[in-house]
């Protein structure tokens, strides 16, 4: 069994996901982590930290005597690594909600400090694509920015939602790294410099990404899922009730391939095979894991895996050597295997016995009351499901209806539907009360996003007084655009906004896509151009027109720019179109965008005014303080008191102003997010990156 080669205890509480290992003086490795209330501890290691005494510049950090760096703001991300060409020492990068700081711990000086209005939720250090100097790339409010060691902004682009995780990985195998971005809209996007080359939809906020080797990378979601992707294909994933706090790739069993190491919120650390997700090692900490890093912490020439808990407990593991034969667990693998096989045997024997009993039951085919209780049902019982659009009534809003029914007098006791992304949790249960039991259950579904969803249905079928039920399991796919009901084109007014494009495809194929992606009462058939269908959204009653004109021109009319983008993407991927020229006009949306831009300007000017006020106030404070202290030294208590009261009032004003500033800032952020999203949305209208695969260059656009 693998045991830690060293353990140590830091005296601080660490903030999860902000642990990094750096050689800040070029040789000695040192653990850096954020503590609560905006400090960075850069302690540990073999050398004593903290060269210079604290400096007193207010805007810049102070290295406390205790080896703490005071940031005075909640730290959202932290990283360490080589950024400068000279000297070859790592620098520390600290991101907060408004700024990014690059810091030289050894010299106790800052390399650069940049205000970033979009914030820094995640940070990654390294080379990106063809950009020669290493960058510190931060992801914030829909925006990505990369800085070199001088603080020059060499890389900037936008993405669909708030960025929560970043990683650098050679995704297409061209020897250059691409940027993986995980965001709050559940997507993992791959950027080849500033262009998106792939996009994978997950089921929850992507909280962590970690390159493994080649094009393989690990990911973690906020619902407790971790898994491994190779390019756009998911290898495996597992879900736990705990949350993955940190993931890292490390070859723990010395087989030459990295395992995915996960630190969990319950203090567990496990290493899983990159191919199967099988656990090859696990250990437990007393509290949640804050971070998992690697490095030669003992300076003996070997690399250790280092895990830190939020309570400051640190354990380092050396990869298992030859003699362990990859067997890192304490119980012997053979024993486990025998146990597993024996369990399988028991299960098979049980199943066999079930069939025997069943055959016995068949001998007397008469159904009796007692049989019903035991769960005997006619063997030809079938479960039928159908999906349809329900336009709703006064008491119920419009929804997609899943109807499940049996074919005879049996009843459905309960229905469990496991599906991702459309329920609050991962499942939805329908359990009618005893008097409402019947052979048919209707389940209203309202998927919040236009994504195809697999519904894994488990229905408990039996009789009214049964204590045992048959479980019917089946899977239905909810089409991507199921929340749009077919309506007659005459009654609806066509939206002003539209997207036009021309495809060299047979219209029949497009109609096929239509049948597959929408819930139509009956399959549409293409007779002749022009062909037109009209839908009404169940969410906001917005109209959607899809027209196919002769000559392959397709026109999609909707006021919802997101929907237009989704339709183009879906169509392009169905028809395997790589590049699509489109013409779009969204007058209403652009009007809105214009308003937002005006607002952004306004907020900027308000911000400036407030800053000016603040500067003025601080001057006042200085003079007042001097006056008050003078008065105190002179023994003029009355005067001193008035001065301090004034100072107090001023302080209150400042706090009020600060609150205004804060509100202003949040609004500004929201507006900026809207702008960033607008750029992203417009990008989605082109069928560019929809289905890109292979190793060659994707070509420029």
């Amino acid at each position: 069994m693998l045991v830690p080669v060293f353990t140590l205890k830091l005296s601080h509480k660490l903030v999860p996901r902000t642990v990094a290992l750096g050689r800040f003086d070029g040789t000695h490795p040192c653990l850096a982590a954020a503590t609560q209330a905006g400090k960075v501890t850069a302690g540990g290691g073999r050398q004593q930290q903290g060269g210079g005494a604290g400096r007193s510049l207010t805007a810049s950090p102070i290295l406390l005597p205790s080896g703490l760096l005071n940031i005075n703001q909640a730290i959202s991300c932290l990283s360490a690594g080589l950024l400068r060409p000279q000297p070859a020492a790592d620098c520390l990068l600290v991101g907060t909600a408004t700024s990014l700081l690059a810091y030289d711990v050894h010299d106790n000086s800052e390399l650069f400090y940049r205000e970033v209005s979009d914030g820094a939720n995640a940070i990654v250090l390294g080379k990106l694509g063809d950009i020669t100097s290493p960058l510190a790339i931060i992801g914030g409010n829909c925006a990505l920015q990369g800085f070199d060691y001088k603080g020059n902004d060499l890389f900037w682009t936008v993405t669909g939602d708030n960025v929560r995780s970043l990683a650098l990985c050679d995704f297409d195998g061209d020897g250059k790294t691409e940027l993986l971005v995980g965001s709050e809209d559940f997507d993992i996007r791959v950027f080849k410099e500033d262009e998106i080359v792939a996009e994978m939809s997950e089921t929850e906020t992507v909280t962590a990404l970690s390159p493994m080797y080649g094009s393989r990378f690990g990911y973690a979601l906020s619902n407790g899922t971790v898994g491994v992707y190779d390019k756009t294909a998911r290898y495996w994933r597992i879900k736990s009730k705990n949350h993955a706090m940190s993931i890292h790739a490390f070859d723990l069993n010395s087989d030459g391939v990295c395992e995915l190491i996960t630190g969990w919120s319950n203090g567990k650390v496990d290493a899983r095979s990159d191919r199967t997700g099988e656990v090859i090692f696990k250990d437990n900490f007393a509290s949640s894991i804050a971070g998992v890093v690697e490095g030669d912490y003992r300076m003996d020439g070997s690399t250790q895996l280092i895990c830190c808990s939020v309570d400051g407990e640190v354990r380092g593991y050396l990869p298992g050597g030859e003699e362990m034969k990859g067997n890192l667990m304490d119980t012997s693998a053979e024993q486990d295997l025998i146990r597993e096989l024996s369990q399988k045997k028991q299960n098979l024997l049980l199943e066999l016995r079930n069939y025997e009993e069943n055959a016995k039951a068949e001998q007397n085919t008469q159904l009796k009351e007692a049989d019903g209780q035991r769960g005997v049902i006619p063997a030809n019982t079938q479960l039928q499901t159908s999906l349809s659009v329900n336009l709703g009534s006064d008491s119920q809003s419009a929804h997609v209806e899943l109807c499940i029914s049996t074919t005879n007098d049996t009843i459905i006791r309960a229905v469990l539907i496991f599906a991702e992304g459309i329920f609050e949790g991962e499942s939805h249960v329908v359990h009618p009360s005893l008097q409402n039991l019947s052979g048919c259950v209707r389940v209203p579904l309202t998927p919040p996003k236009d994504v195809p969803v697999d519904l894994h249905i488990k229905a408990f079928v039996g009789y009214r007084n049964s204590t045992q039920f048959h479980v019917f399991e089946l899977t239905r796919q909810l089409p991507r655009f199921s929340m749009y009901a077919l309506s007659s084109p005459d009654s609806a007014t066509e939206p002003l906004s539209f997207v036009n494009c021309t495809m060299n495809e047979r219209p029949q194929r497009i109609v096929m896509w239509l049948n597959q992606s929408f819930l139509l009462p009956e399959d549409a058939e293409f007779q002749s151009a022009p062909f037109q269908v009209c839908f009404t959204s169940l969410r906001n009653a917005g109209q959607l027109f899809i027209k196919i004109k002769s000559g392959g021109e397709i026109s999609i009319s909707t006021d919802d720019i997101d929907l237009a983008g989704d339709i183009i993407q879906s169509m392009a991927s169905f028809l395997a179109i790589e590049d699509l020229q489109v013409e779009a006009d969204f007058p209403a949306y652009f009007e809105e965008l214009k308003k937002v831009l005006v607002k952004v300007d306004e907020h900027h000017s308000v911000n400036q005014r407030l800053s000016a006020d603040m500067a003025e106030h601080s001057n006042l404070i200085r003079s007042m303080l001097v006056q008050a202290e003078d008065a105190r030294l002179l023994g003029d208590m009355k005067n001193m008191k008035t001065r301090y009261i004034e100072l107090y009032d001023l302080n209150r004003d400042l706090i009020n102003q600060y609150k205004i500033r804060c509100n202003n800032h949040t609004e500004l952020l929201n507006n900026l997010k809207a702008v960033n999203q607008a750029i992203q949305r417009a990008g989605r209208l082109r069928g560019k990156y929809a289905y890109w695969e292979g190793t060659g260059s994707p070509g420029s656009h």
Partner: protein
Amino acid sequence: MELSLARVDYLQVGVTAQKTMRLLPASGRAATQKVVVGDQDGVVTCFGMKKGEPVPVFKTLPGQKIARLELGGALNTPQEKIFVATGSEVRGFTKRGKQFLSFETNLTENIKAMHISGADLFLCASYIYNHYCDCKDKHYYLSGDKINDVLCLPVDKVNSITPVLACQDRLLRVLQGSDLLYEVEVPGPPTVLALNNGNGGDSGEEIVYGTSDGKLGLTQITGSAPVHKWEIGNEKKRGGILCIDSFDIVGDGVKELLIGRDDGVLEIYSFESVDEPVLRYDYALSESIGSVQGGCVGKDGYDEVLASTYSGWLTGLTTEPVHREGGSGEELKLSQEMQSKISSLRNELEHLQMKVLQEREKYQQSSQSSTAVSSVPAFSVNDKFTLNKDDASYSLILEVQTAIDNVLVQSDVPIDLLDVDKNSAVVSFSSCDSEPNSNFLLATYRCQANTTRLELKIRSIEGQYGTLQAYVTPRIQPKTCQVHQYQIKPLSLHQRTHSIDHDRPMNTLMLKGQFSFAEIHSWVVFCLPEVPEKTPAGDSVTFYFQNTFLGTQLESSYRKGEGCFKSDNISTISILKDVLSKEATKRKINLNISYDINEESVRHTLKLIHPKLEYQQLLAKKVHLIDALRELQVHEGNVDFLLPKYRSILEEADQLLEEYKKQPAHLERLYGMITDLFIDKFKFKGTNVKTKVPLLLEMLDGCEQDGLIAFFEAAA
């Protein structure tokens, strides 16, 4: 000396019940012992180990479930005759598997517990105890509550037959002939009894008992009164005790105590300080341990502890080191043995798989026919639904012989489902429709592979009653699910006690009407947990209860046509009044309800609650401060500048956090109960004070005891 034991899995039989595995005494030249085990398929299996392979000695044909398996024989000879209890029958087998006895008892119920001593046979059904001598009925006793286990003090030492019954109502009943000698109060419902040291100690009168809430104790059963020797609580919140044995596994000449629990923990206690046992070793198996015994099974010369688990695994914890130092040659042989075992298992599996595939096809075909029926496989679920005294919450434990796929939990009363750290299952709460389907809780537990045991924690609210249902779906084909129901009773947080404090100011509820003793008993069963379902013998009965959360008490005594309920908590009386009148109306029985409210009792109850309230409020405040204080500590480098009270918070931070985590929503529950008390007090006066509740809640934050009492008295 550190005890290090290695786990070896020997064999898997069918699902086993409590106390159904024993080791036969070693005989002849062979030093290793044979194992005999009875399972719920009715099969008795006897096997020995040869070169790491289980070699069967005999195996009987399937039949009814085996409830108990004991060894017997003439006194002062090796106890090597095997007795099993199935249904209402006792069968005897020789160690070679020859049946020499088939004794059909006159019991109408199934046998639940059995003890054998020479020619004396002690059998228990749910409530009935019977003593047979040479299969002739000698004595009979009807117990007041369910009997869990039976034991007889060693006849050769005590010189008389002294049977002891372990009963669900927290009593050990000591009998003499057909009569009760005396009762012994124990701290929890006893589930298993064993003779201390295997022989009852020097006097032969010492017995060890284990309870369903995980406590352990030793009592000396003298001729006139019990003498309590020691008692070990259940600090680590482990499972209930299912089996006890004494064996010297350490080899120091003193027998250790071996304990098997229903959460799969096996413990070894040693007697270092002579009197009190000390926990020496524990090992966690993944499923409940029904029987445990020390002996020598796997290899000559190495002692071990053998345990049988719910799904029928016979697992040994052996003193034989895993990596023997005999050089690599032997190790190689060992792994070869393993390999051949694995490959034979694989072959067997393949064979089975083929057979299953054929059968599956047949099954599929039958579904085409319109006359055929399809039954679902019966699988057994081992479940336990108990109230924990410490945090006044219920725990529901579900255990299945194969891996669980998912569990659906549904409730028609508002309850809280709490997270249990041990569980790895992914919980998902579904939205509920209380109208018209009366669902207040719908949650699914999707279990990880190989989960056979699931533990849930549930918090109920007194006064709100209904049913909790669990639909268990295991990973077997054809897919099936079983529903199990659990009652959430109106006074769900009450627990039976042996005595109450009679000096407290009490409120009284009197019932009079045309109802039978059985009827009123059934109402009490409906309202309160831990009351035997069977109507007690005699004309009247008195039960005492304690509220596990507040510490208030309830005395209920009733007879035909009359019932009297006394409690110092007005809310308890109010709930009883509502439920009882509703039940009586359902049965169209005219009830004459009168009550006597003691004003003093409200003050008394508030005095009882207030310290808890204050403590919890203080705890919440302290916990709130911890992070900020820690930050200060880090910033300043030391804590000398802090006031002593803040310094002490920092010092105790870990304990405080632990305590706070242990009882989530404790404060909210207290607030709720005080509010109920407030409303109920005035309900009896006929005034509705619901409008004043916000005022009450407001003043609860940091208020003095006197202030609270004054508020209760002023509001009207």
